[in-house]
């Protein structure tokens, strides 16, 4: 590995020196305007034909480029315009270019599908692209929501600012099968294992494009891309210059069903400046403030069986509401009654008539609305300093930092109060090679587990056990009520009222003081997570095509990563000190145009994690041009993922059970070798099935995809259709096991009274997925475009009692109609988007249950002010304010209505 790195650095230095030797002496300047609207056109690529030299127009459409000699031919290109060539023989006159807009479909260029630029029509795998223009014209209030409308994408919404996309199944709030990269940096919080692209990273003004690869992508991007990879790329300050801002003001909760109507404030700015031909910088910042959506699922949950059940707080003494916290603490009051019977034997027969079965009752909980800070604040800041060492080699020092409050759904609901995360990178970019080092610094801030906090809050107010504890008071009052003739449920409810006497009232000083104290105490005695985990990564690749083009275009590369887990024992088993995990990989990719029509690409990647055996992931793709702008693609891909840092080392006491990792160290920590654990479900059915604590293996996926993307009907109709089939091996899942608390032989009773663990396992069965996607975009007259996409994802061969958490609707559909410029001066724009997703059964760590079908309608209408490149927009997300939720226990999302003014948008 060290040798490879040395060669790579030597090659890069060689290039640097060669390029630095180039001379420049003729300056050409000019201006580019939109031929229809006469607007200055920014960020247009201006290159000298036949050379590496190039520049971009600034925010006023001006450019300046230096050539070695004249005459030269300048090439002007930009997405959404017809490419144009201009011959220049004199540098004395300014060049004015009337740039002709083109809204031809399918002309976008993507990079992530093959690591080299290629037209999206010729991509060998399914890929979706969102441009800055798409974001400008989308009705979504936040750019992240645009992803929701892409073909085959499911998004799980934990809260206003916490949204997690996936493709091809396995959705959820903390999706570790879907990578999110921001400017090449893995955006996943290294300890918490969720991606925070909406919280930390780019703001809307700094997004150049988003590319989304559906399905397996490990062969290109390493561990984790089982279901897809989303790559967000920011705007280069050399290309995108000037000051821009957007002010978005909106309202939420308009019907007051969750909370009173509240403002949505979202302000963002970006300033990019090319100081010289060699140096440019940008800074960006964004502030979002709103009253968050709330989880309001008050259905009764059977935590032991993992299913919703009938009843509510008034009808079920053991009620455990999905979004009610503190009521997870449950106990059998029979011991209390037996105690009374022992002290008063004359009541024993009466008590025996009440106690044939356990009388489980739960502590009284508080709703999410009552206990969670309603304020969602998200502040991000980013900066980049770009230096062109040579015209073709750019050094970038950049960082993104974000902080705020958000709500996340994992095994519980988590309030990430004052969460902070920074990503900092240094990279060298050349058209032939790239080298990048970056680090992710995570700080959970005052994050706390809402359920654990509320349970411990209840204990701090009145302990559950003991002769004067809550359960004793409840049990005695219950018996007394029964003796007074009350019905069973009335006796329970009256007993609860007795046991709850003095219970802190929401909003009272007593409540706030106690709750704030408990949430700051680390779990398991409180609710705080003290995670400060970090990630360090270095990666690079080299395009050897200049040496190998006679045979094939070849790219090689590699990366190393080091995780440093640091939770002070509140999340990981790291009470003795930080835990380090190292992994690395190398890849090679070869592309060959076998014929004019057929292009083959083969790649292979090998990765090794210090805790797991190495994995080899090959990939072969073929693109066959059946006609110009019409391509059929076929791919065989493999993907894998090493168990996440949590799956390896988590050690979280959730009071009712312990969520632990699969590292062999846990064998000793919990003495599984001398006091084995048994499968809890089997034990409940009377069978003793010992659970071995074996070596975890990485999960892998083999996937085949066949697709077609092309233009029809005089290039007015863009069709993209695909079908895929995948098979998972060593599927990573969890199993609930139980161990005798005293180290004795296991008994059936231990299923309820033993120490319960949730441990990671590799499923032996080969789970299979299949599905399809279809996208149609049609260009209407007068700049109108309509589109529709539909997708289906399916899971099969799932063993009985296997919790796959596939979490994808069988069918989903998006449609839209829009126009980016209509009216007399083409200043008006609009977009209406409709989304439907089918009902499906959601399986989550917090709760599982049937999700109803969801339909949403988003819309926006905009007006352009060309002189200042400004846009005034009136938009609505979930226009009809039809509250929906897309995971059990997640927030109910209602309508968000906003007006925005964006200045200098391009």
């Amino acid at each position: 590995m060290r040798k490879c790195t040395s060669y790579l650095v030597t090659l890069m230095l060689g290039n640097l020196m060669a390029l630095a030797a180039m001379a420049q002496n003729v300056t050409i300047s000019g201006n580019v305007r939109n031929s229809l609207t006469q607007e200055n056109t920014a960020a247009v690529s201006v290159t000298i034909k036949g050379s590496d030299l190039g520049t971009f127009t600034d925010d006023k459409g001006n450019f300046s480029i230096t050539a070695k000699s004249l005459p030269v031919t300048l090439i002007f290109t930009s997405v959404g315009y017809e490419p144009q060539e201009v011959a220049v023989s004199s540098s004395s006159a300014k060049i004015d270019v009337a740039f002709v807009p083109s809204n031809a479909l399918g002309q976008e260029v993507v990079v992530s599908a093959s690591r080299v630029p290629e037209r999206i029509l010729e991509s060998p795998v399914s890929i979706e692209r969102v441009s800055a223009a798409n974001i400008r014209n989308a009705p979504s209030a936040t750019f992240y929501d645009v992803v929701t409308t892409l073909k085959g994408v499911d998004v799980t919404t934990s809260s206003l600012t916490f949204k997690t996309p996936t493709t091809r199944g396995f959705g959820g709030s903390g999706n570790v099968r879907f990578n999110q990269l921001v400017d090449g940096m893995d955006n996943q919080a290294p300890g918490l294992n969720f991606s925070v692209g909406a919280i930390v990273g780019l703001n809307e003004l700094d997004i150049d494009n988003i590319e989304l690869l559906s399905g397996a992508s490990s062969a290109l991007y390493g561990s984790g891309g089982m279901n897809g990879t989303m790559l967000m790329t920011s705007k280069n300050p050399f290309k995108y210059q000037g000051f821009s801002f957007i002010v978005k003001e909106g309202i939420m909760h308009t019907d007051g069903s969750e909370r009173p109507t509240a403002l949505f404030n979202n302000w963002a700015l970006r300033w990019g400046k090319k100081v010289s031909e060699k140096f440019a910088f940008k800074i960006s910042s964004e502030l979002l403030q709103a009253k968050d959506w709330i989880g309001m699922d008050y259905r009764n949950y059977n935590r032991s069986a993992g299913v919703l059940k009938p009843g509510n707080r008034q009808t079920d003494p053991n009620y455990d509401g999905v979004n009610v916290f503190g009521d997870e603490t449950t106990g059998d009051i029979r011991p209390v009654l037996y105690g009374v019977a022992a002290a008063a034997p004359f009541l024993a027969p009466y008590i025996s008539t009440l106690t044939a079965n356990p009388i489980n009752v739960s502590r009284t909980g508080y709703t999410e609305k009552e206990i969670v800070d309603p304020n969602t604040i998200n502040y991000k800041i980013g900066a980049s300093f770009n230096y062109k060492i040579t015209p073709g080699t750019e050094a970038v020092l950049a960082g993104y930092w974000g902080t705020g409050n958000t709500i996340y759904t994992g095994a519980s609901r988590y309030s990430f109060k004052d969460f902070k995360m920074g990503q900092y990178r240094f990279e060298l970019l050349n058209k032939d090679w790239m080298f990048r080092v970056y680090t992710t610094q995570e700080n959970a801030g005052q994050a706390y587990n809402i359920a654990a906090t509320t349970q411990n809050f209840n204990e701090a107010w009145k302990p559950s056990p003991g002769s004067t504890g809550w359960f004793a008071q409840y049990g005695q009052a219950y018996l007394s009520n029964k003796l007074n003739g009350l019905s069973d449920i009335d006796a329970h409810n009256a007993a609860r009222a007795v046991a709850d006497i003095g219970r802190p009232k929401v909003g009272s000083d007593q409540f706030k003081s106690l709750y704030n104290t408990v949430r700051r105490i680390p779990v398991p005695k409180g609710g705080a997570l003290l995670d400060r985990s970090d990630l360090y990564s270095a990666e690079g690749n080299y395009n050897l095509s200049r040496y190998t083009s006679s045979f094939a275009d070849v790219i090689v590369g590699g990366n190393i990563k080091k995780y440093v887990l640091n939770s002070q024992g509140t999340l990981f088993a790291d009470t003795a000190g930080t835990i380090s995990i190292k992994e690395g990989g190398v890849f090679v990719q070869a592309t060959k145009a076998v014929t004019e029509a057929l292009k083959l690409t083969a790649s292979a990647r090998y990765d090794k994690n210090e805790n797991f055996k190495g994995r080899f992931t090959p990939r072969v793709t073929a693109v066959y041009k059946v006609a110009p702008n019409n391509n059929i693609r076929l791919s065989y891909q493999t993907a894998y993922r090493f168990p996440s840092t949590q799956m390896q080392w988590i050690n979280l006491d959730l009071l009712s059970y312990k969520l632990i990792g699969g590292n062999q160290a846990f064998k000793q920590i919990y003495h599984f070798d001398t006091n084995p654990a048994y499968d809890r479900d089997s034990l409940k059915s009377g069978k003793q099935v010992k659970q071995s604590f074996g070596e975890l293996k990485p999960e892998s996926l083999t996937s085949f995809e066949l697709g077609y993307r092309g233009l029809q009907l005089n290039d007015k109709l863009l069709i993209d259709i695909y079908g895929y089939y995948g098979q998972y091996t060593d599927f990573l899942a969890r199993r609930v096991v139980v161990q005798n608390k005293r180290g004795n032989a296991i008994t059936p009773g231990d299923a309820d009274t033993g120490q319960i663990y949730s441990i990671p396992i590799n499923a032996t069965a080969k789970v299979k997925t299949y599905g399809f996607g279809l996208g149609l975009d049609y260009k209407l007259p007068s700049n109108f475009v309509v589109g529709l996409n539909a997708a289906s994802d399916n899971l099969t061969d799932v063993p009985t009692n296997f919790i796959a958490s596939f979490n994808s609707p069988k069918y989903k559909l998006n449609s839209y109609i829009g126009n980016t410029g209509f009216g007399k001066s083409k200043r008006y724009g609009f977009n209406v988007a409709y989304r439907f997703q089918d009902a499906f059964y959601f399986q989550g760590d917090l709760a599982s249950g049937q999700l109803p079908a969801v339909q949403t309608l988003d819309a926006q209408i905009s007006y352009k002010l060309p002189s200042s490149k400004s846009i005034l927009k009136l938009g609505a997300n979930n226009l009809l304010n039809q509250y929906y939720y897309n995971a059990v226990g997640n927030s109910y999302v209602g309508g968000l209505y906003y007006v925005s003014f964006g200045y200098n948008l391009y």
Partner: protein
Amino acid sequence: MISIKKSLKSAGLLLVGTAGFLAACNKAPEEILGPAPITPSGLSIGATLTATASDSLFNRMVIKSGMQATLSNTALGYTLFVPDNAAVIASFGGTLAAANAFIASQSAANLAGIVKYNMIAQYLPTAKIVHPFPNMQMPTDIILDPTNPFIRLTSFPSKSGAAGATFYYNNAPLTATDAVVANGIIHHTAFVVAPSLKTLKAEIAAVSNLSYFRAAIARADSGSVGLGRLDSLLNYAVTNMTILAPNDAAFQTLIFGLAFRSYLNTRPMPYTATDTAVATATGNGAVAAGPAFLSTNNVTTAQIKGIMAYHFLAKDVSTNPAVPAFQPVYRAFSVNFPATPIFVQTLVNSSFAPHPGIRVSATYTGPLVSALTFGSYGSPTPAAPFTYTANTVSMDRLAINGVFHIIDKVLLPQ
């Protein structure tokens, strides 16, 4: 422009149509409905009593006692043991007029005591009346200690009788069972089951022909203190005991025999007529001494203590078979004893665990017991064990803390 307007118009119409279609499409989570709760329907206990002519006398008691509102509250749940009119008449004077007069003469509090004693705050169908010997002790609606709702007067439903298949409330047979109404269950009893508000000590004190028994208790307790005294037990309200109380005649017979035998033991064999005459006179003299005989040195305290302990029924309450602990902790009404003889332990077993106890059997006439027979291990004259028997003179004398049966012989443990 026209085409744009048309397009916009179409789009607008489409939007309106879509809005109509989508309105109320998304569903908030709805509570999963379980089996529909059983909502009370029909008449309450109170209303049922009012509507049942054959229960009118008891209903009068309920109304006068002020308990009708409680028994009509469908939010509450009770099992009520109701004597029908015939039962009330049989219990209160034998005629309707006498029964009415009795009810009229009683205070509301007294009648509330009767009604509440027949109320159990629980749906108790006969199917749930399952228990080991002798019955199941259930709390009634009478709270003895206002500061502690658990301290209640108890009653004793059972499934007993000659064949062990008849249901009783205390010793009253249930004549009709399991009438389910909106807020509970009604069982009918063959007579009025009324509580006692006195302890066994007080109840026994009120029986004139138990003077020897009281004296024997006093003698047995001499030298003892606290709850170790039988007298304390009899006066302790929260115990639950079954006492066999030999009447005065039984003690006199015993005393006569003891004195008679005592004198003869001083005479050489064979006894002469004079010996017999003197012995008889000695016996009569001892009897003439009255209960005081038991407080003298004619008998030892240990003897009397052993005999009295033999009249307190007990059972082993220890959870450790190796260390038995016999305590007087149950209340056996006459109907709780079977027709086929059984052996029951006594407090004698607390000092000598292997003692076989007392053999007891009941003679049934219909569902009621006409007599109980207790076989004693010992006897005044040499005889086989359990051939010396006592019969009940009076049965089922109820107290707060137990029941006592008056018998015609003093049982001897050895």
